[in-house]
C-alpha cells in the first residue's frame, strides 16, 4: 500500500538576511521490530564457571515479543561490556538502535551480582542501568526482569517476561496409560513445576488475579469437578462438584468469585460462584450450550461461548446477568474468548473455513485479525501487558505451546515439554 503523505509547506518571505524554517509533517511510519543487540555479559568469575548465558535469555525474550529484532553475537562488530568500550559509529553503521551490555560478578557461593546498561546508539545515552543481586537459581528470572526493563524503556509498555504460565501436559507411559499434569513455568516455558498429576484428564487452568492460586477442572473422580489450589503450598479445595459438567472456571478480577459452567440444571449455563459464601448465581438461561466464561478486566461483563445461534459464537453479558449480546458474526466458529488487559480486544478461536485459528477481534468495530495459520489452534490468552498471545497448537502428532505477538508479526514455538502441552493460561504480573 502506497503511503499517503500530507506535507504542510510554509515558505514565508525570503529576504537577504532572513531565513525560513521549512515545515514538514511526518504522518506515516513503519511498523517494524526494533533492532537491538544484547552483548554477551562479561563473566568476571573463574573461567568455565559462567552459570547462565543471560544475554541469550534476554535476546530470546525480546525477539519473542515481536517488538525487537536481536542481533546474533557472532554478527556483532564488538562485544563491549563497559560503556566506554562501545564504538558507536560501528553500531550505527549497522543500523543498530540500542545495545544492552552487562557483566556478572560472583559474590560468594551461589551468589552473583548482575550489572547491565541499556544504551541508545544514536544518542549515546544510557537509557537504563541497574545492578541486581541474584542467587544462581534466580539468574534466569533476573534475565527476564532485565528484558522487562528493556521492553518498557523502548516500547513504553510494561514487559511481561518475568511472568508465568500455567498449562496442562499429557504424557503417555509405555503401557499406553496417560499421565496428566498441571504445571506452571516461566513465560518462556523454562523452569516448569508440577502442581498436580492425575491419570484422569485435567482442564482449564485459571489464575487468580494475585497469581497465588489456580482454579482447574479435574476428572479424578471420573467426572468433572472444579478445584482451586494454592500454588506455593499445594493445598487445594473442591469448589464445584455438581451432577453434569463442572468446568471453565474463570477468576473475577477482584479475586472473590469464579465464573464457571455447570450443567446441573440440564444444560451448560454460566454461573458465578462467590468463593467466600459459596453462593451461586446463574447468569445465563438458554437451552443451548453456554460455556467458557471470562471476565472483562473491569469485572463488569462476562463473555462466553454459546451455540444458541446455531454455531458456537462469542456473546457478552453483564456480570450481574441479563440479556446476552452476540459479539462475533464473522466465521462459523468463534469460541473461548479472552480479553486483552485493556478490555478493547478479544482473542479467540476462530474458524471461517480455514481451520481453527487464533484471532484477535476489536470489540468496538468487530474487526477480526487472524494471527495463526495452522488449523488446530486453541486456548489463546493475552500476556498481562497485552503484547503477546500464548496458545496451544497441534503439530505432527502432538500438541505444543506457541506464542504470537498480538499484532501477529512474530510466532514462536515453546516446544520444551515432552508429550502434549495444552491450555496455556498466562499469569498476572508479579507484584512490583
Amino acid at each position, binding site marked *: 500500500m502506497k*503511503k499517503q*503523505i500530507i*506535507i*504542510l*509547506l510554509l*515558505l514565508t518571505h*525570503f*529576504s537577504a538576511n532572513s*531565513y*525560513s*524554517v*521549512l*515545515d*514538514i*509533517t*511526518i*504522518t*506515516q*511510519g*513503519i*511498523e*517494524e*521490530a*526494533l533492532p537491538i543487540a544484547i552483548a554477551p555479559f562479561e563473566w568476571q568469575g573463574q573461567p568455565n564457571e559462567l552459570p547462565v548465558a543471560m544475554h541469550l535469555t534476554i535476546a530470546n525474550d525480546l525477539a519473542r515479543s515481536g*517488538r525487537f529484532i536481536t542481533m546474533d553475537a557472532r554478527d556483532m562488530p564488538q562485544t563491549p561490556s563497559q560503556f566506554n568500550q562501545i564504538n558507536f559509529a560501528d553500531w550505527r553503521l549497522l*543500523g543498530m*538502535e540500542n545495545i544492552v551490555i552487562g557483566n556478572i560478578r560472583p559474590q560468594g557461593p551461589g551468589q552473583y551480582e548482575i550489572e547491565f546498561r541499556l544504551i*541508545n546508539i*544514536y*544518542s549515546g545515552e544510557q537509557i537504563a542501568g541497574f545492578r541486581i543481586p541474584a542467587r544462581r537459581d534466580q539468574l534466569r528470572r533476573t534475565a527476564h526482569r532485565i528484558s522487562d526493563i528493556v521492553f518498557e*524503556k*523502548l*516500547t*513504553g*509498555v510494561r514487559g511481561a517476561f518475568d511472568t508465568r504460565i500455567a498449562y496442562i501436559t499429557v504424557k503417555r507411559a509405555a503401557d499406553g496409560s496417560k499421565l496428566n499434569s498441571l504445571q506452571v513455568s516461566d513465560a518462556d516455558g523454562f523452569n516448569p513445576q508440577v502442581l498436580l498429576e492425575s491419570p484422569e484428564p485435567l482442564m482449564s487452568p485459571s489464575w487468580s488475579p494475585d497469581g497465588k492460586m489456580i482454579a482447574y477442572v479435574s476428572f479424578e473422580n471420573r467426572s468433572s469437578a472444579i478445584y482451586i489450589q494454592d500454588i506455593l503450598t499445594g493445598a487445594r479445595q473442591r469448589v464445584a462438584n455438581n451432577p453434569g459438567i463442572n468446568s471453565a472456571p474463570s477468576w473475577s478480577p477482584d479475586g472473590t468469585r469464579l465464573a464457571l459452567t455447570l450443567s446441573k440444571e440440564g444444560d451448560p449455563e454460566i454461573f458465578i460462584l462467590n468463593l467466600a459464601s459459596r453462593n451461586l448465581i446463574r447468569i445465563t438461561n438458554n437451552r443451548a450450550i453456554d460455556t467458557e466464561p471470562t471476565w472483562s478486566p473491569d469485572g463488569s461483563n462476562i463473555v462466553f461461548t454459546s451455540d444458541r445461534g446455531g454455531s458456537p459464537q462469542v456473546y457478552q453479558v453483564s456480570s450481574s446477568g441479563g440479556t446476552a449480546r452476540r459479539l462475533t458474526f464473522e466465521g462459523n466458529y468463534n469460541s473461548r474468548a479472552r480479553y486483552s488487559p485493556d478490555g478493547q480486544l478479544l482473542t479467540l478461536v476462530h474458524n471461517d473455513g480455514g481451520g481453527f485459528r487464533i484471532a484477535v477481534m476489536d470489540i468496538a468495530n468487530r474487526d477480526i485479525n487472524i494471527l495463526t495459520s495452522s488449523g488446530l489452534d486453541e486456548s489463546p490468552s493475552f500476556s498481562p501487558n497485552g*503484547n503477546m498471545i500464548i496458545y496451544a497448537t497441534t503439530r505432527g502428532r502432538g500438541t505444543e505451546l506457541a506464542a504470537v505477538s498480538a*499484532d501477529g508479526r512474530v510466532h514462536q514455538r515453546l516446544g520444551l515439554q515432552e508429550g502434549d502441552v495444552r491450555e496455556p493460561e498466562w499469569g498476572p504480573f508479579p507484584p512490583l
Partner: protein
Amino acid sequence: MMNLIMIKPALSSALLHLLVIGMLMFSFDLTPTPRQPIANNVDIIDAVTVDSVQVEQELKDIKALEQQKQQEREKQLADMQKQSQEAERKRQQEESRLADIKKQQQVEETRRKQEEQKLVDIKKQQQQEQQRLKEEEIKLAQAKKQQEELKKRQEEEEQRRKDVAEQKRQEELRLAEQARKKQEAERLAAEQKQRQAAQDRQDMTVINSYVARIANAIEREFNTAGLTEGLSCIFEIRMIPGGEVAEVKIVKTSGNSVFDSRAEIAVKRASPLPVPDNPRIFGKMREIRLTFAPN
C-alpha cells in the same frame, strides 16, 4: 555764608601777624621756661669741684653786673612807657581808620554778599541747568540704550527668522531627498521582490520535491510499532550541505519519551537526508521543523 567764611580768614590773619610781632618784641621778659631749673641742677653737680676763692670773686662780679643791669632795665622801662603812649595814640588813629575801613568793608561786604548771592543764584541756576542737562543726558542715554537694545533684539529676531527659514529649507531638501531615496528603494525592492518571488517560485518547486523525499526518507525510518495513538511531537533539525543532520532539537515533546525517541532516531537513521546541491536552494531548507503526527 560763603562771604562770611572768606572774610574771617583775612581778619584772623591780620590779628595773628600783630600777635607774632608783639611776642618777638617782649621775648626777654618772659619767665624762664620750666626747663631752666633742671639745667641749673646739672650745673650744681658740676660746681662742686670749683675753687672757693674763685667763687668769692665770681660772686662780686655777678653783683656788679646785676646792678648795672638793673639800671639799664629801669631806663629801658621808661622808654617803653613813652613808646607805649605813642603806640596808643597811633593805635587809636589806627582804630578809627580801621573802623572806617571796616565800615567800608561792611558795605563792600554787603555788596559783595549780594554779588555773591547773585553768583550763588546764578551758580544754582547753572547747577540746576546742569542737573537738568545731566538728567536730560541720562534720559537720552537711556533712550539710546533702549533703542540699541531694541535694535539688537530686532537683529537677533531677524537672525533667528533667517535661521528658521534656512532650517526649513534644509528640512525640505532633506525630505525631498528622502522621498526620492525611498521611492528609489521601493522601486528597487519591488524589482528585487519580483525577482525574488520568481526565484522563490522556482526554488519552491525544487524544494517541494525534496520535501516529499525527505518526508519519505524519515517515514521509512519512523518505527511506530506499538506506539500510543494520537501522539505528536515537533523537532527542529539543521542540516549541513549534503543533507547530513547536524542538529536535532525537540521543541515540543509528545509527553511520551518512547514516541519522542523513536522520532529522533528516525531522523538520525534517515540522515543524510536528500537535499539539492544548489547552495541557494539548500540554504532555504537547511532548517526544518519536523512534526511527527502519525495517523
